[in-house]
Each structure stands twice: as C-alpha cells, then as structure tokens.
C-alpha cells in the first residue's frame, strides 16, 4: 500500500506514546460502532449487545501477545490494510451524512497509526530485539499477516444479515484496537530492554 511517509521520530518512548494514543482513539466505539448502530437502528432492549465480534475477523489478543514487537507491528499494519477499504465501502451508504466527518477522522487516524508503525518498525530494525522465547530461533522474516477479514456483505445478502455483518466487523475492529492498545502498554519503555 502506498503511504505518504513523514519524517520518522527517532525517539522510541515518544513514538511508543503516539502509538498508544492513536490506538486509544481508534478503540473508542463512539468513533464508528455506535454511530453505525444508531443509524441502522440496531439498538436492542436490555443489556445485550446488538452484535458480537466474529472470531475470524480479527486476531485475538492472545495471538497478538505471542508476537515479537516486529511481528506485532506487521500484523497491526496488515490489519489496517484490510480495514481502510472496508471503511471506504461502508462510508457510502451505511453512516449518517452527519457522521461522515467523524468517519474521515478515523480513516486519517488509521493512516497516522500506519505511518508510526512504519517508523517504529525502522527503529526496531536498528535494534537487536531478542526473539520471543516461544519462537524458534531468530526471526528471519515477519510472521504471515493475519487471514484477511471477510469481504463486505454482498448485494444478494439480505439487508438484516448485511447490517449484522457490518456490526460484527466494527465490533471486532474496536476490540482489536483495544487489544493493540493493551499490547503497546506492555511494551518495554526502551528500545533495547536489558534481558530479564
């Protein structure tokens, strides 16, 4: 994917803080899921949720925890590559016109996050990051990206099922960003942490 690359910050703590803040912003369901539910009339009575995440849509938090820092950055970047076009599709009809500005802000934040992921990856490449104990040997190449989320609902699918599919996708997306936020919060405060 082509991304405009700004100049990268060389200070690891500053970049990590930016990544954490961006993930914080993006995990907030007020940015996408809630406006979508309201516009599509999917609110349901009582405590239950209008929809639940589909396990296949996004990597679990446990799976993210198991990755090396570079592997995690790679997975996060690959996932954003799947989310952005889906948001573009949803933008045309599935959000209230009044929510489009918010939608664009989310897309911009995703682009910003991806840019910082690139910078952090470059920083880590310069570091001697120890491979995660669970992985055999050094990590010659990043792990394969997660399986792509399902394609958007097709025209032939009935609208209720399509509404549910989009809801589940957004639900998974916000959960994934929360998980990413938690993984970032567990990252060491320095580029080359002393081995414990």
């Amino acid at each position: 994917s082509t991304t405009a690359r700004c100049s990268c910050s060389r200070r690891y703590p500053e970049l990590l803080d930016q990544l954490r803040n961006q993930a914080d912003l993006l995990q907030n369901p007020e940015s996408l899921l809630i406006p979508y539910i309201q516009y599509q009339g999917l609110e349901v009575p009582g405590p239950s949720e209008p929809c639940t995440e589909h396990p296949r849509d996004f990597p679990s938090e446990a799976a993210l925890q198991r990755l090396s820092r570079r592997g995690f950055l790679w997975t996060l970047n690959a996932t954003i590559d799947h989310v952005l076009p889906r948001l573009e599709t949803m933008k045309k009809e599935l959000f209230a016109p009044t929510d489009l500005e918010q939608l664009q802000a989310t897309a911009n934040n995703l682009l910003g996050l991806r840019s910082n992921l690139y910078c952090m990856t470059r920083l880590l490449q310069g570091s001697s990051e120890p491979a995660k104990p669970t992985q055999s040997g050094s990590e010659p190449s990043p792990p394969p990206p997660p399986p792509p989320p399902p394609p958007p609902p097709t025209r032939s699918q009935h609208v209720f099922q399509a509404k549910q599919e989009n809801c589940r996708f957004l639900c998974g997306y916000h959960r994934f960003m929360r998980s990413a936020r938690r993984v970032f919060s567990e990252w060491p405060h320095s580029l080359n942490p002393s081995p414990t």
Partner: protein
Amino acid sequence: LVLDERLLLTPELINISINSEHQSLHLQWTVPNLPHQESRMAFQIQISRFERSKVIWEENYRSTVKQGQVLHWSWESELPLECGPHFVRMKSEVVDAKFPKPSFWSSWSPWEKVVAQDSPGPNELLVFPKDKLVEEGSSVTLCYVSGSNLKNISCYLDSEQIPGERLDASVFAFSLSNIPFIRKTGTNFFCGNSTHKEDGTVLFVSKVLEEPKDFSCETRDFKTLKCTWEPGPDTGLAWSKQPSQSYTLLESFSRRKEHCQHRSWCHWQISQGSQETYNFTLLAENRLRRRSVNLLFNLTRRVHPMDPQSIKFENVSARSAIMTWKEYSIVNHCTLLCQVELRAEGEVTQHNVSVKVNGEYVLSGLEPGTQYATQVRCASASHFWKWSDWVPQKIITFEAAPS
C-alpha cells in the same frame, strides 16, 4: 354420463409461479375437453395454506374459453408465501347462454402444492418477508418459521418486543398496521431466544410521495424555461432500496420529455420559433407511487426579465442627468415596463419608463451637489409576471455655478 362429463371438464393446472416480492401466485391452466369451439365458463379457485383442509381463499372467475387456450389468474397473499406451503385446486362450469343444457360443476382438479421456501433446519430460524418495501401508513404481515429445536422465541420491531399469532406448529405471524417511517435504513424486525442467534429482516418504510406543489415555469431570456415546484419529503431509502423520487417534465404539444436532475427545479430549452403555449405535466415517481401535476400557460405571460445592467449617467449637471441602462436581449420579444426610483434625504420618488431596446430616463429637478441613490427594475409591459430585482446606483450632482 354426467359423471364422465364432470371429469372431462376438470381444469388442468399447467403452471403455478411464485413472485416473492409481490407475495403473489400466478396460475396457468387449460380446459382439455371443451365440447365447443368457444364457451363462456366459470371457474372456482380454492387456495389452502399449511394443510389442504385449511382453505384461506376461494374466488369465482369467469372467462370465455377457446379450445386449447391457456388461462391466467393471479392471487396476492397478505402473508409472505415463504411462511408455509400453499395448495391450489379449481373446478369449472359452462355458463354459456348458447348451450342451455343443465349446467354442472366439473370435478375438482387435484391439489397442487406450492412451496416458496424449504423448511428450516432443527436449529434454524427464518424470518419473512425479506427487505420488503412498503409505504408509510400501510399494513404488513411478517412471520417466522422455526426449527424443531427452537423454543421461547421472542420478536422485536426495532427494540420493542411484539406479540405474534401462531399459524402453525412452527409458524408465528405478526400483523403490523399503519407503519410509521422511522429511518432511511429501515425498521429492523428480528426474532430469537436466549441461546440462539436471531434472524431478522428489514422493513423499508417509504415516506408517501407527495404531489408536487406550487408548480410554476418562467423564462428570463426566451431561450430557457425554468420550472420550479415544492417536492415534499425525499422518499429515498438506504441500502439501494429506493432512490429519491425522480421528476420528469412532459410537454404535450411538442411531445418532448425532460428528465430533471434536481428535486425542485428543471430547465427546459425553448427551441427557435417553437410554440408560445405550453402544456406541461410534471411527473414525480418512486418505486411505489406516481404523482403528476399539470400546467398550461402562454410563454409571454411568464416573462421574468433579467436585472437591468450597465447603469450609467450622462450629461450630468447641477440639476439633471440622463440615466441609461441595458436590457438583456429579451426586448426582441416584448416591451418592458421599468421603474426608476430616486432617493435623497429620505424623500423617494418613483417613475415608470417603457423600454423597447435600452433603458433611458431624464432625471430633472435635482439639487446641486447632492448624492442621490437610484435603483431600477423591470417587468414585462404586456403581461406582468414578476419584477426583476432592483439594481442600485449612486449619482452626485455637480455644484451649482457661482452666480
């Protein structure tokens, strides 16, 4: 003998087609052994649902029948056809004055079973109709068909639980009347129980298409007519269920048609030397309804002149000046009546001027060294329709020569 004739005249159903969107069955049949080339016949048609014995519709239909002719008849169900199997049978009777033999009904044709939807699996729940488009204020019946393992199913319209009526062992129906428009993305109806993922459907409720109001047309240049109207609410719905209503201008004398690109106005090109009288029909359409309004007018009575241009003052002196202005090429078509307004120190005077080519008016009796605010507007002299806008211009008279 009579028994054989009853069998002979039994109608033969050759095809029953299902239209899910319209919830209709379309029957095609013949009467194989017609004794005459052509006879007037009556048919009695029965429709059952869920079981052959549960007749829900019976109708008599008459037609003149030729030998070998295929007959057609349609029936619209208030309940989605997917909610359960239907059964159809019919019988016939010759009711032709040309053949006054004692008439008698034929035997019933065998029941024909019609299945619009396979039964659900044991853990499956199906809700119908799917994505139905209805007009605000109308009535609709929904249903769910549940698998054998599913119990205690609740159904919700948006977030309000609604009671249903049991129609069959695993079929519940929900009759909704006077449905309101809630949102463009539809009203959600879904059913489920505590353990089972629900199924649902979306009712697309369209606002009622209104007749365009204040339909009016005018020209500013005798080249283009601009028609305007009040469209009423936009009936467009999301999910590509119904685009916004479309508007079309049709003119009966020229038989021309124009698809309008805007919801409340439309341009119509006036062709050279074309008619002076127009008979327009403005047609508003969406998927559920058509509305139209008509307008008959003479072009010369719908002239709304452009604003006067290039206001100038010539031969300005202490006490007078000649005010001139240009008029758009409309003057080739009609004489204009223009109003010149003069304002100074709170005093306003107004003068009418007839304009054939360009405007000209002599301002006299002015005060020396005084600033005057002038403005001019024009309208058609022969048939008043609308004034142009006022166009202002200031003038300062010269100081008086020392006496």
